[in-house]
């Protein structure tokens, strides 16, 4: 699992590459836990190369969501593969998180 951070003005884009499981979730957790992340207005998560997510990966996003909301930082997922979106859907997380098809829609969200 590789997480690449691309800062741009008031937006931080995180590119996820690989499989997010109970072993690799710590990499993402470390990135989302950085205090500086709350200085951005938006955190966009590019899921184009995210090929797998387990409950441990979902748990990382869930555990930071309230902290982001309290700081008025919007968390937006985009470019999500169908099989990964399906995992969000099964738990009903698609209704609680902002997931859009494209980068353009993520920037506009």
């Amino acid at each position: 699992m590789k997480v690449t951070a691309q800062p741009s003005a008031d937006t931080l884009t995180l590119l996820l590459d690989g499989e997010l499981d109970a072993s690799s979730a710590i990499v993402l957790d470390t990135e989302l836990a950085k205090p500086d992340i709350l200085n951005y207005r938006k955190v966009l998560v590019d899921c184009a190369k995210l090929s797998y997510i387990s409950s441990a990966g979902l748990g990382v996003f869930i555990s930071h969501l309230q902290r982001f909301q309290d700081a008025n930082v919007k968390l937006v997922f985009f470019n999500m593969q169908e099989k990964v979106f399906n995992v969000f859907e099964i738990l009903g997380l698609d209704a609680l998180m902002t997931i859009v098809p494209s980068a353009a829609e993520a920037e506009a969200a």
Partner: protein
Amino acid sequence: MKSTLRIACSRSHLQQVRDFVRDYLNSRNLPEITVNQVVLAIDEVVANFIIHANGEDETQFLDLKLAFSQHELNVEIADNGETIYLPGTHQSPDLRAYIKEGRKGGMGMALVNRLMDRVEFFTRGNHTVCHLSKHLA
């Protein structure tokens, strides 16, 4: 086709487990989403066995067996540890509460129960065994 796998109780072996299940299912020409759902269910149970039942003790091991009976996939996951691990059903986690609490865990078994047709945990001697099954067309 390889249908059994033994791994040490380390979460670093989860990728190996997923690759093993994907390889096993590959010949069935199943939809990608279906394969991912089965891989996910097995990954969740194996992660629980490694972390909760065996405390990530790499001297312990797990055995996985996959078998098809006509269109039904049957999975057995068994450990070698002495701690009996029988998780609850966890059908409907309150996700809004989880978000508010900043909670990381508690969704794995809910996923497994939604993804598989049958989920059973039981003991065999001093060991814990999980049987999963799912009808796959």
